[in-house]
C-alpha cells in the first residue's frame, strides 16, 4: 500500500512537470508574435520595445524564461499584460463563484444521475427505461452554453422566475446566492446527468447479475435492501472516481462557458476575457492550475479506489 502510494506520487510529479513544460511551450514556441510589441502600444520606439523586453525578460533564453515563469506561478506573482495586475489576486476573486457553481452542479448531477440511472436499470427494457435512454441522449447532445442561453432567455427574461445574471456571494445573501445559481447549476449539470445515468445503468445491470446479489436475495433481504445496500453500493465505486475527475475538470476550466453566459465573474470568465484581449499570462496560469488539479485529484482517487476496492491490483 505504502509502496503504491509512493509510486503513484512519483508518477504524478513526473506528469505535473511535463504538463508545466508543455503548457509553457504552447504559448512560447508556437509563433504568436512578440508580446513586447503589444505591451508597448502602437507608437512605440525600438528603445521602448527593447526596454520592455528587458523588463519582462523576453530577451532571455527560453529555459530561463521557463524557470522564471514557474517560479512566479508557484509564488503567485504573475502579472498580466493588459492591466498589469496580479493574476493570482484576480483568480482568488473569482474562486468563490467558480467553486459555488462547480460544487452545486456536481451535487446535482450526481444525485440526478444516480436517481435516473437506478430507475432505468431497475426498469431495464421497459418503456420508462427507453424514455430515459432517449432523454439522456438528448442531455449529452446539448452543450452547456446552449442550455444556458435558452434557460436564460425563457426563465429569466420571458418569465421572471430567476434573476438575469451575475453572482451574489453566499455570505452577503444566501437566498439570492441560491437564486442566482439555480440556472447555471442545471445548465452545467444536464450533460453530466445524461452521462452518469447511462454509466450507472450499465454498471448496475452488470452488478445485478453477480452471484452475491442472488445470495443476498436468497437469504431473505428485502428488494430495497438488496438494491441499495448491495447493488447500488458496488456500482457507485467506478462512478465516484469519474465524479471526482469531472469535478476537477469543471473547477479547472469546464465551467468557463456557463460562467460567461451568466456573467458570474468566476475564474472561467476571467480566462474567457483574457482570451478576448489575447492576454497570455492569465490563460497560462489558469490552464496550468486546471491541469494540476486534475492530475492531483486523479492520483488521490486512484489511492482511494484501492482503499475502497481491495480487488484492484496494486501497480501504478
Amino acid at each position, binding site marked *: 500500500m505504502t509502496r503504491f502510494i509512493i509510486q503513484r506520487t512519483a508518477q504524478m510529479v*513526473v*506528469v505535473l512537470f*511535463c*504538463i508545466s513544460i*508543455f*503548457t509553457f511551450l*504552447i*504559448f512560447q514556441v*508556437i*509563433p*504568436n*508574435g512578440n508580446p513586447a510589441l503589444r505591451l508597448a502600444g502602437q507608437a512605440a520606439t525600438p528603445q521602448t520595445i527593447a526596454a520592455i523586453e528587458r523588463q519582462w525578460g523576453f530577451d532571455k533564453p527560453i529555459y530561463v524564461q521557463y524557470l522564471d515563469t514557474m517560479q512566479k506561478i508557484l509564488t503567485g506573482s504573475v502579472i498580466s499584460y493588459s492591466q498589469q495586475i496580479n493574476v493570482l489576486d484576480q483568480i482568488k476573486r473569482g474562486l468563490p463563484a467558480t467553486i459555488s457553481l462547480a460544487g452545486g452542479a456536481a451535487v446535482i448531477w450526481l444525485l440526478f444521475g444516480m436517481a435516473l440511472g437506478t430507475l432505468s436499470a431497475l426498469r431495464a427494457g421497459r418503456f420508462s427505461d427507453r424514455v430515459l435512454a*432517449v432523454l439522456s*441522449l*438528448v442531455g*449529452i*447532445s*446539448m*452543450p452547456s*452554453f*446552449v442550455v444556458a*442561453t*435558452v434557460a*436564460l*432567455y425563457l426563465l429569466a*427574461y420571458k418569465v421572471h422566475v430567476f434573476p438575469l445574471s451575475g453572482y451574489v456571494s453566499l455570505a452577503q445573501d444566501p437566498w439570492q446566492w441560491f437564486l442566482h445559481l439555480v440556472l447555471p447549476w442545471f445548465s452545467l449539470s444536464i450533460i453530466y446527468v445524461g*452521462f452518469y445515468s*447511462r*454509466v450507472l445503468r*450499465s454498471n448496475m445491470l452488470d452488478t445485478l447479475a453477480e452471484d452475491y446479489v442472488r445470495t443476498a436475495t436468497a437469504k431473505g433481504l428485502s428488494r430495497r435492501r438488496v438494491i441499495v445496500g448491495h447493488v447500488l453500493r458496488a456500482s457507485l465505486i467506478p462512478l465516484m472516481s*469519474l465524479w471526482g*475527475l*469531472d469535478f476537477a*475538470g*469543471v473547477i*479547472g*476550466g*469546464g465551467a*468557463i*462557458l456557463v460562467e*460567461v*453566459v451568466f456573467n458570474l465573474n468566476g475564474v472561467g470568465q476571467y*480566462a*474567457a476575457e483574457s*482570451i*478576448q484581449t*489575447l492576454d*497570455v499570462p492569465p*490563460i*497560462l496560469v*489558469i*490552464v496550468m492550475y*486546471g*491541469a494540476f488539479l*486534475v*492530475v492531483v485529484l*486523479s492520483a488521490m482517487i486512484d489511492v482511494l479506489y484501492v482503499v475502497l476496492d481491495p480487488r484492484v491490483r496494486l501497480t501504478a
Partner: protein
Amino acid sequence: MAINQSQPAERLPRAGGVGPLLLDDIVVDDVVPGIGHYRLAARRLRRDRTALLFGLLFILIVVACLLAPVYSHDIARIGPNVNNVTGTIKVDGHTVDVVSPDGIPVGPTWHARYFFGADTNGRDVAVRLLYGGRTSLAIGFMAAAITMIFGVAAGLAAGFYRGALDAVLARLLDIIWAYPAVLLGVAIGTSLALGGLKIGPLTIEGNSIFIPAFLIGFVYIPYVAKPIRGQVLALREKEFVDAARGLGCGSVRIMVREILPNLSSTIVVFVPLIVAGAILLEASLSFLGAGVQPPNASWGTMIQSGLPLLTTSPQLVLVPGGMLVLAVLGVNVFGEGVRDALDPKSQIRLGR
C-alpha cells in the same frame, strides 16, 4: 456472440432423436449461424427505427449545409458575408428596415429573404446558418479523422510493443488527458489564432479552419488511444498472433493485418462519438473566441455574436443553437444504434 460451431452434436438436445441436429434449428435471440459479424449488425441496425430516423436527420442537415451556395444564390439571393445595414425588405406588404435605427435586426420573416431574420450587420441568418454548418461539420469530420488515425496508431503501437515505447506514449497521453478538453483547446487555439502554424514548408493562417480541426483532433486522441491500447494488450496474446508470428510475419504486418481487423468494431463505434464530441467542442471554442476565426462563420461563432442581443433578437442564438443540438443528437442516437447493433455489451463511451 457467434455459436461455437465446433460443439459436438451429441451434447445438443436432439429434436425427435432422429439424425444429427442441424445448427439452423437453434436460434439464439437473432443470432443466425453462418452470418458475418457486420451483416448481423446491419440486420439489427435496420430494425432500429429510432437510430435510422436520427441518422437520416443528420444526413439531411449535412445535405442542407452542402447546398448552402444554392440556397444563398437562388433563394435568399444574398451571400453569407454581405452586410445590409441600411437596406429595407418587404414583409407582408410593409417595408421594414433590415436593421432598425436602434440597431435591432429584423426577426424571422418566414420568407425566402431573411427566413430566420438578420443579424446586427444585416446578414441573412439562414444563409449564415447553412454556411456556418459547413464549417462546423467539416471541422467535426476532419477532427474525427485525425483523432481516429493518431489514436488508433498510438494505441496499437503502445499495446503491441509495450515496454519503453508504451511507457513514453502512456505518459504523453496522460498529459493531454489531464487538461480539461475545453481548456486545452482554448490554450492552443488562442496561441495558434495569434500566429498561425508553420510546419516546414506548410504554413497555415491563423484564421484557417484547419487550426480548430487539428487541435480538436489532437485533444481527443487519448480518449481513443487508451481503450484501443487495452484491447491490443489482450489481442496480442491470442493464438492467431502466435500463428502469424510462426509463419514469419513481421510486427507491422501482424499489427495491420491481424490485430487491426479485430479492432474494427471498436473503431466503428468510436467514430460517431468523436464526431459528436468534435462538433460540440468546436462550438464551445468558437463561442469563446478560440475556435473558428472571422470571416468564417460557424454555429459557435454565430451563438457568440448573438448573445449580447439575446433579449431583443433571440433568433440569433436559438437558431444556430437548435441546429447544433439537432446535428449532435442525430449523430449520438445513430451512433448508439450502431453500438447496440455491433456489440450490445460494449462499454465504450467518450469521457474520463
